[in-house]
Every structure is written in C-alpha cells, then in structure tokens.
C-alpha cells in the first residue's frame, strides 16, 4: 500500500541579488496516516518553505510529492486547488483571517469555496468555534480578536472540511507560552479524536519533544530528530 504522504528528493532554491540560496537540497520524508509530527530547525533553515511545498502553495525546482499514491505535482491547477480545499488544512504563524468577514464566516469559508450549503456550513462553523472555545466571538471581525483567539479561529477554519492533513507553521510563534500550550493541546486533541495527520513546525523544543515523532531540518535535509 502506498504511503500516506511521500516527499521525494525535493529541491528548492531562492535567488537573491544574483546569488542562489539552496534551501531544500533533496528532501525526502515519508509520513504515515494519523501521525503527529513536529518539525524543528534553525530560523531560516527552510521549514516554512518545506511546508509550503508540501501544501502545494509553492513550486519546487525538482522532486515529487505523492499523496496516497497520486502524484500531486501532476494534477492540473484546478485539481490542485480542489486538493488544497478538501485535503489540507493550514495554520500559519500569523492567523491570515479574511478581515472583511466575521470569525464565523472565516471558519465557514472553506465549505463555501467547495460550494456546500451556506446554512449548514455556518452551523458546522459554529460547532467548531464552540470546540475551540470561541462561540462568544462568532460575530467579531478578525480586527477585534486577540492573537490567541485569531489563531484558534484559524485552526477551526483549517478543520472545517475535516482535512486529511493539517500543516501548522509555528502556530504558537507569536503567542505567550500559556496560550501556545492551549493551541498545542487542541492540535493533539484534533489528532487523537479526528485522526487527522498533522505536521507542526515549531521552535519550541520542549513542545516538539512532547509530540510522538520529531523531525529536524538541517542543511536542506529533513532528518529524524529523536
């Protein structure tokens, strides 16, 4: 049986002022279904780049990405968009909520994009907000939420369509330790209760240790950190 997620020989470089920065140099890693993986590495080592490539938000120079056997890079633009919509949930370092919409609408957005019924989507969004403990903030705009609240809304949004894979890029980077711990607890809960595979980038070594599998990005390679 094909692995859940198979990243193979991925190369990615940036070009700045005529100089080439090799960020990913042949990254290969396999992640199985239901795993909860932490990814650590020095700042600027390419963790975000790796996550973006895996999340199909960025194009690598070379390499392949297989999700449950299908080669994701071979899909058409439209299929990739649908793949992102249905299969992947993102949580970024800063929340990236849409400022014109209420927290509730933000959470429901993935469902609206896949053209599900608006009313039932909003109902599900309300449940999710309740789950992350923010039902009293449903009608607030992102500008009126604190950093921790926004990040919880973003997590609820990522879970809206029950994705198979959750990619979190330093979700607690901008938060105080206590709030950050709350987010991590939520992630663990999601992984355990819903069986969602998750890759969490963090530079909180302690938090990383507490997760079942630990990876480290060094010299453009992903290695096991255990």
């Amino acid at each position, binding site marked *: 049986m094909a692995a859940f997620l198979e990243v193979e020989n991925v190369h990615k470089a940036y070009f700045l002022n005529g100089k080439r920065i090799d960020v990913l140099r*042949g990254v290969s890693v396999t992640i199985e279904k239901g795993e909860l993986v932490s990814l650590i590495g020095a700042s600027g080592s390419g963790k975000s780049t790796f996550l973006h490539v895996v999340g199909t938000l960025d194009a690598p*120079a070379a390499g392949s990405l297989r999700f449950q056997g299908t080669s994701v*890079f071979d899909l058409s633009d439209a*299929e990739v968009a*649908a793949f992102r*919509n*249905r299969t992947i949930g993102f949580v970024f370092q800063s929340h990236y909520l849409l400022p014109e919409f209420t927290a509730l609408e933000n959470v429901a957005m*993935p469902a609206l994009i896949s053209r599900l019924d608006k009313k039932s989507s909003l109902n599900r969004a309300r449940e999710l907000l309740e789950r992350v403990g923010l039902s009293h903030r449903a009608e607030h705009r992102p500008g009126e939420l604190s950093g921790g609240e926004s990040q919880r809304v973003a997590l609820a949004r990522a879970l809206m369509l029950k994705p198979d894979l959750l990619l979190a890029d330093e979700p607690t980077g901008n938060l105080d330790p206590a709030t950050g711990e709350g987010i991590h607890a939520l992630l663990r809960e999601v992984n355990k209760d819903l069986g969602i595979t998750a890759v969490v980038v963090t530079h909180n070594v302690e938090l990383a240790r507490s997760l079942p599998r630990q990876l480290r990005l060094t010299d453009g390679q992903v290695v096991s950190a255990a």
Partner: protein
Amino acid sequence: MSAPQARLQWTGALIASVGAAAIIIGGIRAGLGEALAADLASLLVGWAQLLPPLVGAGAVGTTLGLFAKPLGATPGEGLWLLGPGVVAWTVGWALLAKALQGDQKPVRPPSAAVGAPLYSKLAKAKDFYWDALAAYGFGVLLAEVGFVLVYVALVAPGAGKPNAAGGLSPVWAFSVAFSAAVVVAFIGGFLGAASSKRLATPEATAALLYFGLPIPVLLSAMHSVPALMTSLGYRLKEVVYLSSLLGENRPELGYWLVFAALALALFLGINFGFVANSSGKFDLRTSYEAFVSARHVSVFRPRLLLGVFSVLILGIVPPLIAFAIVSAAEAAADRTRIRKLGLKDPLLAAEALNELKLKQQTPTAMMTALSVGGVGVGVMALIIVLSVMSGFEADLQKKILGTNAHGVVMKYSLDMPEYADVMEKIGQVRGVAGQTPFILNEVMVSSEGNISGSMIKGIDPATVGSVTDLPSYMLPGGSLDGLEDPTKIHVKRLSPPPAPKEDVPGVVPDIERDPMIDTATPEEDEDAKAAAAMPGIVLGRELASSLKVVVGDRLNVVSPLGGELGPQGPMPKSRPFRVAGIFYSGMYEYDSKFVYIHLKEAQRFFGVKGASGVEIKVADVDDARAIMRRIYDSLDGWPYRTKDWGEMNRNLFAALRLEKLVMGIILSIIIIVAAGLIVATVIMLVLEKRKEIAVLKALGVPDGGIVKIFLGEGLQIGIAGGVLGLVAGLAWCFFIEKVGIKLDPQVYYIPSLPVRIEPVQTVLAVVIAVLITFLASIYPALKAAQVEPVDGLKSE
C-alpha cells in the same frame, strides 16, 4: 543572454520589420489602397478615425507622400517588393527564434539537484500551443467568412433599392450574420483558452495576424485594385453596400469595425474560456465569489450611493459643503458625547472611540466612490444629451411635418391638370388622412422696405388644413380667408374701424373720428378699392419683418420666368399682392422663406394648368413610406412619382443621426475614462488584497474563482454607477421637461430645451457602460489570479 545572441535577436527583429515594411510599401505602391494608407495614418493620429468630421485628417497620410504612387506608375509596380518582403519577414522570425532558443552557457557549477525529477509543471511546459492557435485562428477566420456568407445569403438581392424583393432587410441580415460571427469568434477563443488552460497571448496574436487580418485587408484593397473589384466586387456587392451605409464612400471603415468587434469577441471568449476552465470544468457558478467580492468593495452602502447620487444631481460643490457641515457637526457631537461617556465609565468612551475608528474609510473606499461617480456621470451625460438631441429631432420632425406634408405626389411633367382625378384616386387609398393640391415655384418678393428671394406656394385654402398645420400657425390679425376673398383682409388701422352707419352708406363724415388717422381721403379710398382687388398673400414672420410689412400692406411678387419676351429676352413678370396674414411655424427655414398664395392665382401667375402636385397627410407618420408606395401603385406608377417626408428631408435627418452618433462616441469616451478609473481602483484592490488572495488560494480557490471575484468587483462598480447615472439622468430629463430650461429666443427657435427619453437608447447607454466597466476589470482580475500564494503569505 550573451552578447552575440542579443545581437542575433535584434538583427532578426530588424530583418522581420524591414520585411513587414517592404510588404506594406510594396502593396501600397502596387496600388493596394491609398485610402487604406490614409486610414492607417489617421489611426496613428488617434481618435480621428472615429469622428467623421475629422476624417479629413486621414488625408495627411497621403499628403505626406510616403505612400504616394509615383506619377505614371503602372498598377503592378511595387509588386516585386512583396516577395522579398515575405522572405525577410520569415527569415527575421527564424533568426529571432534561433536566438531565443540558443542554449545559454551554464554560469554555475552543477547543483545537487542534477538528476532529480524536474517539477512536473516545468517538465510539461510547451513553447507554443498549436491547438490554441488552431482554435483562435479557425474561430476568427470562420467568423469572418461566415459573416460574409450568411449576410450575402440572407439579405434581399438589391436591398436598399425601393423594389427589393425577398430576403431580409440589410439591418436584419446584418444583425443575424453579425451575431453568428460574434458567437463563432467567442467560441473559438473559449475553446482555445480551455484547451491550453491559459490565456495564450502569443497564439492569439498570431491567430489575429495570420488568420484574422487577410480578409479585411483583402476587402479594403478591393476598393483600390480594379482587378480585384471586377472579380470579387460583384459577388460581394451587398457587403460593400452594407459598409457604405456606415460612412459615405468609406466602406473600409465598416470592415474594420466588424473586424474589431470580432477580435473583441475572440478576446472575451479567451478570457471566459480561461476563467471557466481553470476551475476544472466549465464552471460559471458564483456563490462564494459574489459573497467575497460584495464584501470587498461594499459598493451598495446607502451613504456611498446617496453621496454619489447627490453629486450627480446637484454638482460637486453643494454636496461637498453639506458633507463638510454634517461631518463637522458629527465630529463635534461625538467629541462631547465621548467625553461624557468617559466621565461615567472610561471603558464606554474607549468603546465609542473604537466604533468611530471602524467607521473610517480606506483609500480604496474613496476610489470606489470616485469610480462609481465617474461611471454615473458618464451614463447621466449620455442619457441627458441623447434625450435632448432626440427631443430636438422629434421637435424638428414635428415642425417639418407641420409645415410640410407627409408625402407628395408629383408627375414627370410641369403640370397636372387632372389633379382632381388623381386626388379622388388617392382618397381611396388606405391610410391617407388628407390631401391638397399645390404649385411650388421660386420668386422674388419685394416691398417698399426690402427685397427677398422666396419659395412661393399656391395652395387651396379649403383643403390645406387637412395636410399641414398652416391655419393654426396664423398669427392674430390675419387669416387664410384673405386668400380666397381679398376683401376680408383687414386694412391697417391704428384703431378698430367703427361700425358703418346704416343711414349714411359710403363716406362717413363723422366728427368723432380723428381725421389725421382714420378719415379716408378720396385718393386713399381709391387705393383701398384697388387694394381690395389685389389678391392676398400669406408670409412667414421672419420674412414679414425683413420686408417690413404688416397685414394689409402691399407686396410685389416678381418671377424671372413667365413674362413676355422683351428686347433682351424674357422679361420678369411682376404682380402686386396684399398681405392677408402672417404665420409663425417656429422653423426659421419656413418663416423666412415661404409665401403662400391661392392656387388659382398661382395657376394664372405661372401659367400652370391644374397643380404641380398633391400633398398628402397620412394617418401614421411612421408608415408614410408604405402608404406612399400604395398611392404610387394606385396611380399605376409612371408618369407619377411619390416621395415621403423622410426622402424629402433625407439630408437633414441623416445629419441629425450622424450628430447623435458622434455625440454618443464622444460621451462614451467619458465612460471609457471612468473605466480607466475602474481599472485603477480594481488594481488598487488587488494590491491591497494580495494577502487575502493568497489566503483564499490556500483555502482552495482556483484561479478562475479569483478572477470571478475581481470581475464581480468591477461589475458592482459598473452597475452601481450605471443605475445611479440612469436615475440621475432620468431625473434631469424629467426636470428639463417639466420645469424647462429657457432658450434664448434670439438664437433658438424653440422656447425651451426639448427632451424625449427613448427607452432603447437609454437602456443601451446603461448596458454599454456596464459592459465597458466589466471589460475594464478583466485585466486587473487576471492580475489578481496571478498572485502566487507564497508571495501573499510572505508579504508580512
């Protein structure tokens, strides 16, 4: 790129352009159209092409001498340039392609990635999408050929001539053929973009150049190459006729306009194909797209709409002052309110401050309001100006139809002695509402004060009222009765004549009358008697004032023809008339030119038997042509002929229509400027929303969805502006109609500005505005779709 390659590239481009120049110059020297050269030149000048009054500028190209044929050149000369030109064109492109393909020297040592599978999107990249080229080229070509064939097949042979039989009228045939061609071009663009899944601009350019241009070029060339005209012109004569309807003897203009429309259809098709297909299937649903774009621009806010509307209605300054007053008052009130709240509970004050901050507008919101206002002003101006022009046209038509008949029956001969029989036959034709015989001629009219050239018309006072409104145009103090019976003409008196006394007929020795004014001396009495014998004449107000005559005055009518033969040839013939009445139609043309006398007097004066024709009034003005045709048939045609009012005033109405078209084009430029504003606004929105675009993409919105979101934003601005402009324009028209804007009577012949709202043209103005704004937002929307998710997410 290395230096030699760059040199090769530029050499290739140079050779290709020399080739193009050779083709053009060779073609023109071979006689392929100075007109075309002139067009190209005026195209370079800019808008000149669109404005018929400026078309003269097109001559610049020819006068420059650049394309002028040398004197005595044979038509074939210059043809030899075509061959080398084509060769140079091809070679140039080949060099260019080689230069672009030439492999670059690797500057860096091989990286660690050598050997890894290339990112598959890159691996599958193609340098040219032949299928897209095929779809575009075939689409354009098919559209053009189809247009010509369908038009020729549908249109009635010999359309435009009165005896056209079978087939559709040119307008209908054109509409059908044109719609079909537009659909074909659109489908071509759609399929091409859908198959290549991209906009494929190089392919579209090549398709238009190699498949689209030949036919219009050939058609344009046809007009200056006799050989082509003889072989093709006959078959395409309907098409030539059609395009010559547009601009007098400039049929090329028509071809190129159609070509431009087809190119636009292709462009639209490409965009729609790309948008629809990039989301996987032909997806034109807009559920979340509409939701998101409505939040982005939020154009339908009462405050914004009200503000723009009041600017449209009141101008810029009054609403600005009102706005300043209101916001000053609001600010002052808010300050005290917040301070009071703060004294009670500081947190309440903080909350109020926060609310105030939320109300503040972003620069984009200002831009949105400006764009809505721009479109609104354009639409409003278009509606008002077109309605006023329609008003003038309707007014003119009413006046022309009031003073003129709806049609005339004439004969190929000087007189029509049998006019009574003719009138009887005409009377039986359905749709005829009135008729009157007439004699028309040109004369000089002289009074003691002045002399003027005039049209003289002999009329039958009994029936003339059934055809024109002349009787109702008569000013008080005179009437048409004086034509029939000259004794009814009021004699000029400064006080009303006393009732004649029963017992003393004739001269009235009355001491109560002022001898200086009224008492008729014996000679005056003599004069009056002679005058009573003089036939009456009716003339227009302007003519009367320039001749300085009033009712009862004497006039001499002088005809250059009809007199006896004198020693130096025919003598002018002169006869005195007495002014029986003065009319005022409101048409300067008539009031200053026309005089009316009795038909019998005209018969005698000009030696005409019967009448020179019969004027007709029809029941339905718009049906005049058909009714006149029926009259023609009932009279068995020759030697009779008929004309309706449109034909009688063809130049006038054509000029009016042309003027309206030009005004429409000029005002559309306002809308195009507003569309530029929309482009700027939507681009600002795109820049402002880069992050949101990235997030939406990360959430799974395909490129097509992003395009739809931003198209929706442009469309909202267009619709809001269009509707506001419509309402404001109609309000203004209503105002002008009800309240009226007085016109200077010295200059205009109408007391106040006329308006006539024509539903079709009004709706068209709004639709065109919305369409233009929609087209304008295509470019920024495509730009928005090109935002890479990572770029947006890293922009912080």
